[in-house]
């Protein structure tokens, strides 16, 4: 199993770079994963990552795209409540890349 090194700790990740043990997550893990994907995490990214983690804690699944865009619209304004905005932040897709940074499992299926 592959690992990534964060603040001196070796964290296990799967073939696709997702955490093997979700409990291993702490904020620097997200920063490191983003660095690997060449994404520079700013406040806008953290808003999303924090929302994903909160939602996951309640429902054990990443939020649907619509749930996420609505939450973003509510919090950050209507002009940001769309997939385009999320794709700008997470070029490989909010559903997958943002989940990875947030330490969530990868959404599978026909998505």
């Amino acid at each position, binding site marked *: 199993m592959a690992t990534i090194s964060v603040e001196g700790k070796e964290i296990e990740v799967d073939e696709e770079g997702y955490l093997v043990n979700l409990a291993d997550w702490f904020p620097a893990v997200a920063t490191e994963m983003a660095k690997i994907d060449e994404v520079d995490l700013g406040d806008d990214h953290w808003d999303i990552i924090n929302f994903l983690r909160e939602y996951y804690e309640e429902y*054990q*699944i990443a939020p649907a*795209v*619509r*749930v996420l865009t*609505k939450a973003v619209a509510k919090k950050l304004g209507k002009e940001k409540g769309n997939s385009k905005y999320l*794709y700008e932040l997470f070029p490989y897709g909010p559903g997958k890349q943002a989940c990875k940074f947030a330490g969530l499992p990868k959404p*599978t*299926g*026909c998505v």
Partner: protein
Amino acid sequence: MADFETPKFREYPVVPQIKPDAMAGDGPFVSRAEFDTDLGYPGELPENWKEKTLDKMQDLLGRYRSLQVFMDSCIKCGACTDKCHYFIGTNDPKNMPVARQDLMRKVYRRYFTFAGKYFPGLVGAVDLTEDVLKEWYNYYHQCSECRRCSVFCPMGIDTAEVTMAAREMLAHVGYAQKYSNQIIQKVYKIGNNLGLPGPALKGILEDLEEEVEEDTGVPVKYHMDKEGVEALLMTPSADFFAEPHIDGLIGYGKVLHELGITWTVSSKASEAANFGLFIGSYDNMQRISMRIREAAIELKVKRIIFGECGHAWRVAYSFLNTLAGPFDFLDQNYPIPQHILEVTYGALQEGKLRLNKEENDHLTMTFHDSCNVARASRMGNKPGGQFDIPRAVIQAACNNYVDMDSDTIKDATFCCGGGGGILTDDLMELRVKGALPRMEALRQVTEESGVTNIAAICAICKSQFTKTLPYYGFEMDAIMSVHQLVSEAIVMTGSEQEKELDGVEDEEGTKEPEE
């Protein structure tokens, strides 16, 4: 974007020049025991793998006489060679359907034919080695089981069945694909491909109810686990999660509400998809199908209606009764099962739905026939219904419609590039390259006829296009659900949209459907 080159649009769709081994490699991520054992597979290569592989081949040859015929009857005419989107997009000669089949055929000859047993060199028979197994794994995951090649095969060889058999043999020696098996395991554990638990699903559906009521003023219900309603809706879990899928789901809800058909989804069977088909496993396909039967009985419904999911409709239309029947407890006056498009189309024919096409006037649509619907099922009561009904519904909802080139639609449709268990990030290069012929046909109608958007009735197609359209210079949201168009155009009784069109006072009997 990943590190490969997106194929260039070709001026003419000529037979591509071959590039041997262009797609050689290890294939997609291999599954692990943690996913496999629940599906009845060992999860790792057993010591006697060779014997087990050949035993399985013998078993499948006996069980599916078709496979035996396909192994024996290829005449190497070459008709299939340039029909595969993966060959067209990758130039790898092993992606010619005949060559991909021959990876199995040469092993079949060695162990199951007289000539191959005694004169292997003369008939191109080879020993089963680990390298052969690896090559199978790689190339049988470069086939989306779309069956376009089979349409052109004079012997009627069904490449998809060969691929399915190969995958089934591989899985029996611990060489299954992670993507498909992880998903099937989630279906067993949680109820759907996504792993969407009941409470999350409930939350999403409640949000939709709120949203639809806000938009229309009509309290359309999106029930979960509601007993005693008329219909069980079986739809891909992507419809609860992804875009544009969810816009289609909103549309189904509006149509069913307007027709007075009460319905529910089931948290236990919250998935129409059946990846058992993709991995060629009858046992898993059956186990997945049984959930539908059980949910229908538990919820005491009279009808089962399927949403927009391509291979689910193949399994439902062609196999469900065998896998999970008899459905004698359902209302026999309706098709068992029924497609949501049949419901919508039927209602349009009877003048029971009012659509305001002008809502979609900013769009010029085309339609992508999904392979499993086009080549492995039917809709309605006429041959070709699976081609005509979706088009009729789109045209009832939108004034502007143009078909793509006739060589690329209906029974000759090109796969989106992501079907059959290929819709995974580790196969992105294959997906993008395999999308080439569909993208070329789309580009033609965008340039010649001003097409703005493409609609589909399959969750895989929709997700695949969302990802691959941008590689070819299109917007990711150019892909739409068919019922998304219906959703935009529908004028429900008592809705804000009706008031806007007719004035505030509603009269009885004003519902005149548009032609």
